[in-house]
């Protein structure tokens, strides 16, 4: 193994990369810009008030009832523009007619059950949260705020957090915000694009420029060349991941769980998408066309793999497509490893990422030829 070459290739590769302002921008600053923009859009709750339709079905509702108190808290939070509707109105129809995306329904036995709670502490009550899955702007935020208010309400009324809950099907847990969801997706997306396009460049531009032909006549093996390039690509992956996380911590105050699975996923993702780039570069030999082919594959994957919004917000057939996209497993793996700290799910998604990485990289290496026909 020619370590002298591998060291030189890595050192000069980094130096050359730093001299390309455009590449540095797309690798580091562009993801930061996206985080800032998306974060600002989705997390600016303090200055914004959201329309919330509230329907109190509580049979014991009066001025002193628990349900009335809860509605008062919602109104006084300053976040919601609460619109109360009467018991006979169909909530679904009303939301559609008024073009409002979130609603909250207090059940008929709300007061009764709360009173019962003081006798039997196993009692629990769920409010029904109505939401429009296509309105990703408010969905997660409104849900999180209601959950926060409920926590406070539970504390004040019962000194417990478990009596009143929310009944819905959203995957987002109460303690997480959109930016928590978004940052791991951004990391997956950034690694994907830099690996795919970097790999395409090596396999098309270097072929056109005669560099691959030249290497073929020099004392370097394909393994040494690929190893040195992968070290450089891993450097890129970690530097962009680090910068994205740093912005997440400094600007949005995020907390990340850094564990071995996080590193495994980042490394495997780098190999996986480098392999994908090699495969594209093998079949589409013109540099410009290969770039377009890379875009045609990565761009839809970016949207379909749950990078910017949860998969549950998409139609079912698109959710089924996402299940076969490698970026989906990367995004979910990173979320579960870094944010949710859910070991079981992390293991599940990481195993898929490893399998995808091995398959894509080996196929890419196998298909990449230096020698001409």
């Amino acid at each position, binding site marked *: 193994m020619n370590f*002298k070459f591998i060291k030189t*290739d890595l050192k000069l590769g980094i130096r050359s990369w730093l*001299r390309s302002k455009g590449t540095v921008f797309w690798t580091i600053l562009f993801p930061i810009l996206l985080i800032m923009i998306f974060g600002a859009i989705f997390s600016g709750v303090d200055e914004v008030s959201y329309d919330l339709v509230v329907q109190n079905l509580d049979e014991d509702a009066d001025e002193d009832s628990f349900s009335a108190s809860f509605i008062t808290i919602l109104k006084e939070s300053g976040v919601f523009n609460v619109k109360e509707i009467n018991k006979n109105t169909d909530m679904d129809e009303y939301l559609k007619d008024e073009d409002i995306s979130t609603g909250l329904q207090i059940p008929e036995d709300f007061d009764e059950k709360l009173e019962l709670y003081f006798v039997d502490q196993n009692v629990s009550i769920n409010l029904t949260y109505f939401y429009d899955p296509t309105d990703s702007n408010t969905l997660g935020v409104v849900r999180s705020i209601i959950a926060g208010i409920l926590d406070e309400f539970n504390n004040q009324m019962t000194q417990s957090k478990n009596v009143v809950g929310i009944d819905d099907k959203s995957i987002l847990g109460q303690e997480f915000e959109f930016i928590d969801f978004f940052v791991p997706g951004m990391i997956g997306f950034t690694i994907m694009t830099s690996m795919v396009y970097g790999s395409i460049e090596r396999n098309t531009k270097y072929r056109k420029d005669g*560099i691959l032909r*030249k290497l073929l*006549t*020099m004392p370097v093996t394909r393994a040494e060349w690929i190893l040195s390039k992968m070290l450089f690509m891993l450097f890129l992956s970690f530097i962009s991941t680090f910068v994205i996380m740093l912005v997440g911590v400094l600007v949005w105050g995020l907390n990340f769980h850094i564990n071995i699975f996080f590193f495994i996923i980042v490394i495997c993702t780098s190999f996986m998408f480098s392999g994908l780039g090699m495969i594209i570069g093998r079949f589409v030999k013109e540099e410009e066309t290969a770039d377009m082919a890379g875009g045609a594959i990565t761009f839809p994957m970016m949207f379909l793999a749950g990078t910017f919004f949860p998969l549950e917000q998409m139609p079912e057939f698109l959710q089924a497509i996402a299940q076969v996209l490698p970026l989906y497993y990367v995004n979910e793996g990173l979320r579960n490893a870094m944010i949710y700290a859910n070991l079981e799910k992390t293991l599940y998604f990481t195993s898929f990422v490893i399998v995808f990485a091995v398959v894509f990289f080996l196929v890419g290496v196998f298909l990449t030829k230096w*020698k*001409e*026909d």
Partner: protein
Amino acid sequence: MVKKTVRCPNCGKTTEIFGQPGEIKKVVCSSCFTEGKVTFEKTTYDSNAAIEVSALRKEYGELVAVNDISFKVKIGEVFAFLGPNGAGKTTTVEMIENIRQPTRGNIRILGKSIKTSFDDVKERIGILPQEFHSFERLTVRETLFYFSSLYKTNADIDGIINAMDLKDEENKLYKDLSGGLKQRVGVAISLVNNPEIVFLDEPSTGLDPKARREVWEVIASLRKKGKTVFLTTHYMEEAEFLADHIAIIHKGKIIAEGSLDELINKYGEGSVLRIKDCKSKEVINILQRSGFEVKKEKNGDIAVKIDYKERIIEVLSILKHECVEYGTIDIRRSNLEEIFLKLTGAKLSEADS
């Protein structure tokens, strides 16, 4: 070690066997146990040859790109492989460089077969591929350092920079260099391992005349250093200016080979002295009587073939002695363009397009 595949005369099963040149090995068929002997022929090669190519052929389906060509390149010479685009030059050179797989034929570089020993050869050759562009955002010095890191030998980067006259550009990025300088850097890269043979595939294509001349000077300096240069080109002036030996390839076949003088004498008209506006009608007869080959051209010029340079003075003496009145005298030597025209019926520049 040489590999041979032998077929059993009894059952037809093929067996691979390894041996040294000159060795005779006993072989037993693993299928029918028939015994036999395999001789590994002693391979002979010309110790003065840097490159030996024999019966080299490359087919792409029905198309024969290189048609059983053979030639030798002597150590220390500039060998120009001349031909129009599409003639098979680059295919040939890339087979010699082991970039392309020949359909059949043998290639030896510095006495070693590239089929079996190309890894040994790599350390001793330097290559500038056609249309080569290096890494855009590395400086000239970094570029040379990068490629030199591949070799076992430690390159004298400063020496190469000085020899290639790149001192003023050593800290400039490759992308900021002119076309001529880029090619000069390309040649410099091919020298980082101090090679014995340098392959330059169309090194001056696409350059303006000044830059082309600069590249020629660099190539000429390689010959002075004793390097063997294998130059592929479609510029006849380049071959005329630089080459010790020229092979002209056309449609995959070598149609002429030799030094420039040999080619001109063999295929061209040699040198021709033209007498313009000649007033004497007798001059043709006078020169013919003196043993010159003379003819009157359509425009009235009298063309006298000159076999060797002393005969120019002889012609001038005759003209003076006979008091022949004439306008001007012009002496012109045949060139490769005329030879190519004569051999193929097409101009080199036309065949190019």
